[in-house]
């Protein structure tokens, strides 16, 4: 079902998009019909710079399963990396 539900979270970092690198300050996250991925529903993330209008974005559309694997991978990488850098 098409919804307008969006989880928004603040970020600090950069993303590389159509016009090269850009600063991003937010991610818009939602689980709904994707535009491109051949899925009924996808976990969609738009990395944007809301402070500059939020029109340019870096986007991903992921299956629910792969999105959960990505979450695990992010948490694992953070844990490993932070441990390694603390050593």
């Amino acid at each position, binding site marked *: *079902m*098409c919804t307008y539900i*969006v989880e928004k979270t603040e970020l600090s970092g950069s993303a590389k998009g159509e016009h090269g690198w850009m600063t991003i300050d937010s991610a818009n996250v939602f689980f709904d019909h994707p*535009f491109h991925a051949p899925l*009924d529903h996808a976990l969609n993330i738009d990395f944007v710079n809301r402070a500059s209008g939020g029109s*340019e974005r870096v986007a991903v559309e992921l299956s629910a399963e792969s999105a959960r694997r990505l979450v695990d991978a992010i948490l694992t990488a953070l844990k490993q990396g932070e441990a390694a850098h603390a050593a």
Partner: protein
Amino acid sequence: MTNSRTSGRPGEPRIDGGRRGVLVGGVALAAAAAASRTASAQTPAAPKGPYRSQSSWLVEFTGHKGDKGLAYYARPEGAGPFPAAVVIHHAPGWDDWTMEVARKLAHNGIIGIAPNLYFREPGSPDDQAAKARADGGVSDDQVVGDVEGALAFVRARPEANGKVGVMGFCSGGRHSFISAGRIKSINAMVDCWGGSVVVSDPALLVPKRPVNPIDYAKDINCPILGIFGNDDQNPDKAQVNKIEEVLKSLGKTYDFHRYDGAGHAFLASERPNYRPEQAVDAWQKIYAFFHKSLA
């Protein structure tokens, strides 16, 4: 495949089984050209054959508050006059499948015009959709204004017969329902699994969507075709029953088809929910409904 059908016509409720149909595929050329070109100038005379020639191109239309936007226009070849339908895209935006729907209509003798409801946003159609979503979606008033603009555009075309329907998918089905209630000149409406037509939580009525769409049912004066999958969660069976109950109590003319073994968006051939048998049948019902209602 099983498909239950319930219909309403003042004094004529009926139920019967579904039937199978044949979907004729195929798309002719797509070309960008000025909206003002004439039928005779578009293509040389085509030889007679088993398939209909058609053309499609981008046009500029005047939407809500006079804003200029783009629409995809697909028409059957020939002098016409042809019936027409405004194709209202779903929340992910003005995507390839929306254009395919317009071409399918044209291939079957119906002009299809699909306005981009997010044209006010910058960027490509997917970026426009992302921005619209981030901003909480577009307002119902704006959508109705844009649909009115698309209606006016197609009615002014020399190949159109003046009868225009609307059809939409998912949120576009909801928008079709609202448009049919608010735009008196709409001659037929197809709701393909429009979600949130019945809003039970008042918290969901927000400034951009302030009215429960089912409240517009009393104002709909055109025939309605409903296409639903029985495995859909929004609208689920109870919601479809509620919509039908309201239409029936108001004496509206409607024809609902509910397909077993199908869920949400089962006509979308590029997604896993596609159900070919049910989809072929549903398309035949859509074409027949428009030809009958817009003759």
